[in-house]
């Protein structure tokens, strides 16, 4: 039942916050924060209950809710939690708290509706991580779009309409292709067994001809590839990031990509092992292209948000590589990268947003010498830039190292090329630091430094990254539980 409450609290909290905004703006903010914190507490309680009891290696779901929803189609309302979803639920809620906190002081029009969208998109993301019925999964997958669309289209920058529509069209078209794939799998399962069901566990063993399996897998893959985003379907992300507000960017870059990575791990290989293997070389090639292409474009951007968006694309290429390499170690690295990238990229977007709030520009060329006037903000920027370029001791390093290690055994050439992406990350991350924070303060900028609220938020994110970098074992341990019942990757 806790799983249901996780979603209900967010949906209900969103509605309450919307109504409360008419009474007092502060009440609306507090209600949103309370809703996300309650959810985080529930998730932590769930984590402590199942991980400390020592039976984490068991081959079962921690917790399930399963009700018949639309019996005519065999659709169930089926939520379940395992180690993988637990990790990502925690990430979602941590970033949820962050996004509510960083919207605190900003002047936001239609405050209530803003918080409604913020909480509902979190609810949709939780729905994606928890659904074990493919219809429910698709339902949540699509439901994430509308709040995100509003967040970009109403509270975005100058070209917000273009960015929001582009985002929506890309994800909607790819989502519909996934729906066709889900339906194809549904009927294939019916023809094989005579049972109409969308249940993940039932569909796992569906016998498919290699040809059919490949087409169905591609339907899923394209939806995940667009959301990740993978080259050549990535063009919506820089546009969206360039226009969206800071909190929106936290969710956009930190969480939506995570849903895509999750989908690949949860559905692609377990449902279509044969097609997955056959497709792996293509996907890995695309992953390597994504890594390098993202890095090169990040290097040449002048708009700070676009730079971060391309950097994010480059990092997510590693996730794709890790998942398709078929090695268990690389898969662990991919999960680690999803989490660490979620934190570090979100933090970078917060830093960038803070710079923009103060300087009113997103152009790197106009900045420079900020360290003189905002040392704390600049220090935070340097920290997260180093995390992002893969400094040992921080979370991103662990993830990308494991991905390269695992992939090396499967495909040496790809690994070598991908490793160049790590090198390129050094260039664009340091270029950002040098251009924005170092050098002479020519303007000269005289700006207020980080406030306590911002400082605490970024500080907490630094602690998490350090923890992931120095003691990643709890993450691996938790994921190992899920990996036990994800079918063993290719041997």
């Amino acid at each position, binding site marked *: 039942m806790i799983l249901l409450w996780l979603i209900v609290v967010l949906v209900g909290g969103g509605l309450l916050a919307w109504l409360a905004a008419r009474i007092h703006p502060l009440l609306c903010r507090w209600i949103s924060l309370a809703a996300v914190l309650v959810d985080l507490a529930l998730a932590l309680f769930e984590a402590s209950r199942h991980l400390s009891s020592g039976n984490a290696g068991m081959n079962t779901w921690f917790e399930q809710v399963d009700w018949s929803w*639309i019996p005519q189609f065999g659709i169930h309302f089926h939520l379940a939690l395992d180690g993988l979803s637990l990790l990502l639920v925690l990430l979602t809620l941590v970033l949820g708290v962050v996004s509510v906190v960083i919207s605190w002081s900003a002047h936001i029009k239609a405050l209530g*509706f803003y918080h409604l969208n913020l909480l509902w998109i979190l609810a949709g993301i939780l729905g994606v991580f928890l659904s074990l019925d493919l219809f429910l999964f698709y339902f949540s997958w699509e439901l994430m779009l509308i709040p995100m669309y509003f967040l970009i289209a109403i509270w975005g920058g100058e070209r917000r309409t273009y960015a929001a529509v582009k985002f*929506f069209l890309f994800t909607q*078209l790819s989502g519909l292709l996934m729906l066709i794939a889900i339906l194809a799998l*549904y009927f294939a399962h019916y023809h094989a067994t005579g049972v109409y069901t969308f249940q993940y566990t039932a569909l796992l063993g569906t016998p498919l001809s290699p040809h059919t399996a490949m087409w169905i897998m591609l339907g899923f893959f394209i939806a995940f590839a667009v959301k990740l985003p993978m080259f050549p379907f990535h063009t919506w992300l820089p546009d969206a990031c360039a226009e969206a507000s800071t909190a929106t960017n936290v969710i956009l870059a930190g969480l939506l990509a995570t849903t895509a990575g999750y989908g690949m791990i949860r559905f692609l290989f377990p449902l279509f092992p044969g097609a997955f293997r056959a497709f792996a070389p293509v996907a890995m090639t695309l992953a390597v292209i994504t890594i390098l292409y993202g890095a090169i474009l990040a290097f040449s951007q002048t708009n700070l948000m676009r730079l971060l968006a391309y950097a994010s694309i480059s990092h997510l290429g590693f996730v794709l590589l890790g998942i398709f390499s078929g090695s268990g170690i690389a898969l662990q690295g991919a999960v680690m990268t999803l989490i660490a990238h979620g934190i570090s990229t979100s933090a970078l977007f917060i830093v960038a947003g803070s710079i923009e709030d103060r300087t009113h520009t997103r152009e790197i060329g106009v900045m420079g010498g900020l360290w003189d006037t905002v040392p704390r903000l600049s220090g935070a920027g340097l920290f997260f830039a180093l995390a992002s370029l893969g400094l040992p001791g921080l979370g991103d390093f662990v993830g990308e190292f494991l991905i390269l290690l695992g992939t090396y055994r499967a495909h040496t050439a790809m690994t070598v090329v991908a490793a160049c992406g790590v090198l390129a990350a050094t260039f664009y991350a340091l270029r950002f630091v040098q251009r924005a924070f170092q050098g002479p303060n020519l303007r000269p900028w005289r700006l207020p430094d980080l406030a306590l609220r911002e400082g605490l938020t970024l500080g907490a994110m630094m602690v998490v990254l350090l923890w992931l970098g120095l003691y990643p074992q709890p993450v691996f341990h938790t994921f190992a539980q899920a990996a036990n019942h994800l079918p063993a990757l290719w041997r």
Partner: protein
Amino acid sequence: MTASDMLALLPLLLIAGSSVAVLIAAAVGRNHAVAFGLSLSGLAASFCSVFFVPATQVTALLDIDGYALFFFGLISAASFAVALLAYGYLRNRDIDKEEFYVLLLVATLGAMILAASSHFASFFLGLEVLSIALYALIAYFGDRPLPVEAGIKYLVLAASSAAFLLFGIALVYADLGTMDFARIEHILAANPNPNLTLLLPGVALVVTGIGFKLALVPFHMWTPDVYQGAPAPVTAFVATVSKGGMFALLLRYFAQSGINRFAPALLVFTIIAIASMLAGNLLALLQSNVKRILAYSSIAHMGYLMVALEVGGAIGASAVVFYLVAYFIMTLGAFAVVTVLSAEHRDADQMEDYRGLFWRRPVLALVFTAMLLSLAGIPMTAGFLGKFYILAAGAAAGSWALILILVIASTIGLFYYLRIVVILYQQPGDANQPLPLRMPAASLVLAALTVILVWLGVYPSWMLQAIHTAIGSLL
């Protein structure tokens, strides 16, 4: 005709009776509220009667089965909503109001006859009853240029398409010697390779007549002009009840006459479906008038319905009916918003009328958003499940090409729905918008439609069950 036949006809008789009652009341003394009240009670009584009327075949003409009763309920409920919209719309305008309700009831009767007809004669009767009432309804505001133009256009085109239909029926009759759908099925089943010389042109001409009414490509030319010119409540009626009644007939014709055994007929329907989906959505992109956008979008929606119709079988038929229910709700909802926002002298059909609506009337803007997202097929709305059902029907039959085109077309469609949605949330340009009239009845309709829209989108089991029962009597 026995007493039980009369009882079976009760839903139709109640509508016909209330239209006469409105006429007599207006002859005694004109009173808008009385005419409105009589119409509403007639429609409500007809809706309620659906639940206990026995299912029988009444003469060769009308088959009052579970399927027909389902559509009687749907059509009377939709007309009820249109009447509520029309009340507020007419009240503030200087025009004779009572005849509007008479025409509305007569048109509703025509659509119901279509839904129940199992014979070409009743088909034609229902079509004419519906069309003739519609000519007058569309041009009801005779002092404005646009409605008159729309009315005349509809009159000329509908009359000529009816002539095509009649000729088609004559050819089919000349060949097979019957106009009864079930008998046609019987004859065709006995003779798998019939002589197509007369039959094929006959069927093609019948399809022309049906295609015109449904505004399928290439018979869609009248739609944008009529949608734009007609008063908003009438447009809602044309888009829902008139097309719904005709689609109910088409589905019955498909299921009972076995016409889908002919490969040429199926090919024609496939081409029509694809052309409607693509042309409807692409042409909508070029429009800047909200009513015209909705007109082209309705062409595309009819195309989606054709996809499910082609699939056939129980799943295809259920998908058609479910989608029609969803289409009724969201189309009525969209036009209800247009009605509510309309000023005294013109309908709110310009994009400018909607700019920044969210900041002026947030609830209305959210309701309109819900309707548009449902038309686009986004989850939590009836439109999503409708589209899901059609895709499922297509996947079950393995018509991958058709559903792929559907997916692409609906993504194109998303683009123009989003254009309207975006405008709702932009900063309002100028503050002196014409003040909309107060319409409590229409707000009630909007609230009810929104609740049903989301209810069906989240928990559709009861409706699926009802449709399953209704379809059971058809196949």
